[in-house]
């Protein structure tokens, strides 16, 4: 496919690459220790010394944003993987076998969808102790329905395709049909969904952490930083701005990326 990559795809890649670079850099270098407090320098405005200023404990905001990116990516990636794996299994089982199993699974998925996402996440993390892994699990469960639906519709469409019937007629087994014939033709919707669910996961994580139910201190999280910053919004607006901006750029980046992938693989044009 030699179609020109769309503007949104390029912008999406640029944003995601930037964040990836920030996240990877933070693994071995941050300007300051992200958790080092320095009361003497609390709530400083951005300066050459602290590019994004300092927070109410005098911690360097840039360093915390950088380390927070790790949390965001970890949550996004793992929850997307959870959603993908279970969504794929459920979607394939429903679409491929059809009949009552399809009804059963999809009504279950509908039920999960009908529940407001953030409420379900709140429920899950409040049953267990709030922590990073609970957050990931909750968000992962939340993203199962979208994957399951995308996979199911893809399977339904593909399974009636002539080449699938031809392969069946030549002796191919179910696993071969699913993984070798059907799956390769569903990669693009799955990737699109994955990118979307990645950004949704980061947003939900931020929301949960903002409510104090997500990632627990001292792990830095963008949502948590927003929560801490809101009391100082008049005194130190940069403190709120920084995590907010990063959340926005990340979500925007992944959404653009998802759009771009879809456009790129769209054969209708």
């Amino acid at each position, binding site marked *: 496919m030699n179609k020109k990559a769309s503007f949104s795809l390029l912008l999406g890649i640029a944003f995601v690459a930037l964040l990836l670079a920030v996240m990877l850099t933070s693994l071995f270098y941050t300007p300051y220790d992200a958790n080092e407090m320095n009361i003497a320098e609390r709530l400083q405005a951005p300066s050459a010394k602290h590019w994004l200023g300092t927070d109410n404990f005098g911690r360097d905001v840039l360093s915390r944003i950088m380390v927070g990116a790790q949390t965001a990516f970890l949550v996004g990636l793992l929850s997307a993987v959870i959603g993908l794996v279970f969504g794929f299994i459920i979607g394939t089982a429903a679409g491929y076998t*059809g009949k009552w199993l399809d009804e059963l699974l999809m009504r279950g998925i509908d039920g999960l969808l009908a529940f407001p996402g953030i409420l379900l996440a709140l429920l899950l993390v409040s049953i267990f102790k709030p922590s990073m892994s609970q957050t990931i699990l909750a968000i992962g469960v939340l993203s199962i329905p979208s994957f399951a639906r995308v996979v199911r519709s893809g399977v339904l469409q593909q399974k009636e*395709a*002539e*080449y*699938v*019937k*031809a*392969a*069946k*007629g*030549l*002796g*191919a*087994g179910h696993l*071969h049909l699913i993984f*070798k*014939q059907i799956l*390769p*033709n569903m*990669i693009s919707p799955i990737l699109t969904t994955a990118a979307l669910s990645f950004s949704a996961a980061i947003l939900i994580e931020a929301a949960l952490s903002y409510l104090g139910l997500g990632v627990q201190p001292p792990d830095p999280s963008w949502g948590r930083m927003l929560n801490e910053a809101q009391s100082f919004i008049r005194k130190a607006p940069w403190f709120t701005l920084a995590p907010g901006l990063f959340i926005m750029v990340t979500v925007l980046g992944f959404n653009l990326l998802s759009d771009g992938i879809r456009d790129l693989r769209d054969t209708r044009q």
Partner: protein
Amino acid sequence: MNPLLDIRELRLELQRTRKESVAVLDGLSLSVGKGETVGIVGESGCGKSVLSLSILGLQPNAMRITGGEIWYKEEYPLHDLKPRDIRRYRGSEIAMVFQDPMSSLNNGLTVGAQVTEMFRLHAGCSRAEAKERAIALFRKVGLARPEALLKEYPYQLSGGMRQRIMIAIAISCNPGLLIADEPTTALDVTIQAQILDLMRQIRDENDTAIMLISHDLGVIADMCDRIAVMYAGQIIEEGPVDAIFEEPRHPYTIGLLQSIPAPSKKQEKLFSIPGTVPGLAERQSLGCRFAPRCGMAVKHCYTEAPPLFGASPGHAARCWLLAERGGQADAIVS
């Protein structure tokens, strides 16, 4: 000679609702000998494709074999095998070539991946060995530059090439029976001739039996030893190719042959059989299924369904017009 494929009184029903079902194929008997080419002709909707699919257990989910038997090589009851067991015959013993080569290859996979899979699946070959065999196979079916072809995707190839590839895949494991469901319908005439030549060559080299489904009587006449004419889920006439073309007995067959355009008939309006194939539910009535469209129907045709009557050795038709000439033809299959 023992038939390779023996279909006896096959009845296939479509489950309409939970309680109601209608017959799609009804009392259908057909046999195909080793190395023999049998043509199946008939209008759209007469059950040709479903027949070929049901041999491999690939009929749509709502359809079920409710009567009759399908025997392969006299030992394997295809009508009675579990899905798991029938899979072993697909591709290795009985292979199928579908109508539209544009959609029967997977555009998401390279040609190589789809061909070598057959060797790996049925013959248990290694990757390298499978690739070698695929290249040899491509040469055999007349595909140029086979090595490069393996790395290409189906959408990069022409219809003729794709159908050659489909045929290559189908014959890769030397099946005893090749079912070709309108293999040339989607191709233009020159390519059509090439594909038919290829099939003939395969039949002669490997002694493969071919079941050729088509509504193109020219193709059938060209390729087949025997012909079965289907109408509304039944075989209404069956016989050697010469007998059918020169002495058709069933009014439907006669009509079919008359409707072939020919240069000599240039000025005339093309003949067509009036009416359409009866719907599935309308076939339940007592009489001959063709009677409402038949120019020669008499009262009797509407009240009682005709059995197969023998016309000459190996030639039989399901029509009361033959009743006086011959007795009931039980032994026509031989």
